[in-house]
């Protein structure tokens, strides 16, 4: 099956997916290095199991799961999971190659989005996942995914009247 992850074509796939995956992982990582560690672990795990590459939802779910594990590992032992997730807002925001001032404002507005809206936006815009794939990754309904996306865009539009 040509869609299945094999040792031969991993570089091609990774080159295509890496920027989006890294952006996705950086939502939870405390540093860019942590984000790269998360992507590395997720990608290797996904590749070793020879999953279908078309199943991108599973790949992003793996990244998310490992990222949350990273967060929990860093947290104090007694800390509960909910508190670990609450820490997400203090993490490194997604980073972009900024070309002008308008883009800088856009990125700043993006950083202010609630995490649940930002992750849907990251998956939809820069990873080109469908709402069905996003829903499967986040274990939410497609309607919820779509509405989070719309809320995110509405918030950005409100905060950036010039756009």
């Amino acid at each position, binding site marked *: 099956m040509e869609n299945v992850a094999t*040792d031969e074509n991993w570089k091609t796939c990774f080159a295509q997916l890496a920027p989006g995956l890294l952006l996705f992982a950086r939502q939870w990582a405390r540093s860019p290095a942590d984000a790269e560690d998360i992507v590395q672990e997720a990608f290797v795990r996904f590749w070793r199991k020879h999953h279908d590459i078309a199943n991108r939802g599973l790949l992003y779910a793996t990244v998310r799961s490992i990222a949350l594990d990273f967060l929990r590992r860093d947290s104090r032992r007694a800390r509960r999971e909910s508190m670990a997730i609450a820490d997400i807002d203090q993490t490194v925001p997604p980073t972009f190659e900024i070309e002008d001032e308008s883009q800088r404002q856009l990125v700043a507005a993006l950083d202010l989005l609630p995490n649940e809206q930002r992750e849907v936006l990251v998956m939809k815009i820069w990873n080109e996942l469908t709402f069905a794939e996003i829903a499967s990754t986040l274990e939410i309904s497609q309607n919820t995914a779509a509405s989070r996306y719309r809320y995110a865009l509405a918030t*950005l539009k409100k905060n950036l009247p010039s756009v």
Partner: protein
Amino acid sequence: MNDFSDIEKQLRKLRPVQPSADLMTRIERELAEEASERSTHLRTETARHVSTAGVLPRERKFRFNWRSVGFGLAAATALVLFAFLRLERPAKKTPSLAGLSPVPAFSTNSNAQLVPAGLTQVVYHTRDEGLHFSRNSDQPMRRVRSHTRETLQWRNPTTGASLQISYPSEQVSLVPVTGQ
């Protein structure tokens, strides 16, 4: 029309930062390590089967074992014969077993449409009362008392109605004792 097309367009213009060159090298190394572990494991497994250096074990081929087939067929035939002989032998009547008798030969006189459907006799208690010497026999007999519950069933095939009568019964049987 999508109200957010402008903002979506602006967002798509943003390019995420590329991962470091080191990341791909690390992944390559990790996947290579795994592949090497796999091949080492494979080599170890192979070495276990190699009898002399450089000589690869002969590939296992499927061979039909006629002896096993013969034994199997003989066992199957014996089993079938045994089952057949068991079926042919008349069933021994034992008082301690409950059984479903064939349809009783009598019918009700109250309703001609009801036909006998079954007779069940359940022996729920048997007591050995010891030796008994009857007057008209010089041979000792063993007296066995059995408590049973008999259930008679009738059924109307046209309407599906059924009638069931159940009653307890006691049976005393004298079994001749043979001297040894």
